[in-house]
């Protein structure tokens, strides 16, 4: 495939990726009653719709709650997953294979199916309607552990670890000086994915966070759809507001975050 065709294919894909965003802004900038006809250009009503969103739900608190939950969980998932991935990929210890298989088996456990007993458990801990109920169960997950295990087993040269051991490095020093630098590209990806996943999580926060001041962005969003008449303008203004911070943050950090994948000193 030559250069021109490659760029054309990528540009076409980019169009499909971007168009729904553009379209949701178009809907968000019109009065709901104007949407009976297909609109392709933005209208004049965006700010009015934003005002309606903040009047309907406490969206500022929801944004702050989501930012807190997503930051804490991202840091802890990346740290714990890298630690466990290092152990599974490069350390020899009794029970390694069965334990790793149990991690993989864990990924098959449909999390949403355990939601009723989990709810009972959280109530016992008296965490109901607190952010701890959302944060603590998600501090680490099987996906992250398996992802880092796979990545480190491919990308971290065993000779590098052995050289470190010859110099008398204990495992925690190897982790700090050898594993972390090599794992940086995958950590950046895992961090981004975790942040997004947490920010966009919907079902569990909806179930466990009851009072309006404790809600996350997605729960707030769902309430914008709760009216008798389907108010697409209001709902999509909410989605624009909930997505905008992510786009700004990742736009600003993309050089460091995604660029980390580029430089990654991980040649085999």
């Amino acid at each position: 495939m030559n250069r021109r065709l490659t760029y054309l294919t990528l540009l076409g894909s980019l169009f499909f990726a971007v168009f729904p965003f553009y379209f949701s802004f178009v809907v968000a900038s019109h009065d709901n009653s104007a949407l009976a006809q297909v609109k392709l250009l933005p209208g004049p009503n965006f700010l009015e719709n934003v005002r309606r969103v903040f009047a309907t739900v406490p969206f500022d608190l929801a944004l702050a709650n989501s930012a807190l939950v997503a930051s804490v969980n991202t840091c802890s998932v990346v740290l714990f997953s890298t630690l466990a991935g290092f152990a599974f990929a490069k350390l020899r210890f009794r029970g390694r294979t069965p334990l790793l298989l149990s991690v993989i088996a864990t990924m098959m456990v449909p999390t949403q199916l355990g939601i009723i007993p989990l709810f009972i458990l959280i109530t016992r801990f008296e965490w109901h309607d607190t952010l701890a109920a959302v944060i603590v169960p998600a501090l680490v997950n099987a996906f992250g552990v398996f992802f880092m295990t796979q990545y480190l087993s491919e990308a971290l040269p065993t000779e590098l670890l052995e050289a470190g051991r010859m110099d008398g490095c204990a495992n925690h020093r190897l982790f700090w000086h050898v594993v972390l630098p090599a794992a940086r590209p995958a950590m950046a990806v895992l961090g981004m994915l975790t942040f997004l996943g947490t920010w966009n999580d919907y079902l569990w926060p909806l179930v466990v966070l009851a009072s309006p001041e404790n809600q996350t962005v997605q729960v707030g969003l769902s309430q914008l759809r709760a009216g008798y008449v389907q108010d697409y303008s209001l709902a999509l203004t909410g989605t624009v507001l909930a997505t905008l911070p992510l786009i700004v943050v990742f736009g600003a950090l993309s050089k460091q975050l995604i660029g980390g994948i580029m430089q990654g000193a991980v040649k085999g």
Partner: protein
Amino acid sequence: MRTWLYKVDTRVSPYLYIAPFFVLFGVFGLFPLGYTAYVSLFDWSLLRDEHSYVGFQNYAELFKDPYFWNALGNTVSILILSTVPQLVLALVLAHLVNRPFIRGAAAWRLGLLLPNLTSVVAVVVIFSQLFGRDFGLINAGLEALGLGRIAWQEGTASSHVAISVMIIWRWTGYNALIFLAAMQAVPKELYESATLDGATSGQQLRSITIPAIRPTIIFVVIVSTIYGLQIFAEPQLFGGGGPNGITGGSDRQFQTLTLYLYEHGFNKGFDFGYASATAWVMFGVIVLFAIGNFVLSKRIRGVK
């Protein structure tokens, strides 16, 4: 002293590193799952305080219910329609962005991730508009091309396609990014010498990239299958979120297994026992699919 410490370090530290995961999983993953199994053996309704033991009766009823088999069929259909194109597209996109002459790689990567920045709620709201029968953009386009309008939600196949498009749109870039991360570990010299030997982009994808990132591909296939079998929010919100969403359309044409579970657990008398039995059967289906994937990938390796 030093060697003693060293021994403790090599023996004990691996367990310390994996401990956070296993402790948290034990409390918040394993316990709920076990408890679900226990509940599934009871006639357990939220509306009553007494729960009577019924053995495997919930399971027997489940296997007799044609709606259950309908939901299983729909789930598998949506799984295949969404996962196969998504993974092929992701692999091709990752490979294209990874081409050595591509400029602005960071920008393309951000572009890949863009659809994943939206929540499932947002995606379904947007696409429900796009796939609308009367005012939807896609039908307007079809009409402009001289083709007829499609009632996307009413048909079995068309509703599966619409739901699959939502899943594909949201997850293709995400998977491409995971493939890309793995491709960074493939030595660039391999591509350079292949290009010198006259290998085309497609040949390089097939004979260098895919074999080199096989573990990651298997990982993505398994994870996508597991998530695909649990699809819930897309069909539920596509059906409008109300009763029509829970049954997956008026004829249950897009009711998935999780929707079926939700219908019995939270809609029909809060029948937690029956819903828990459904949960365990779903778990079994997921395990079967994962084992199938694993065996298949082993076999493919054997052929090579």
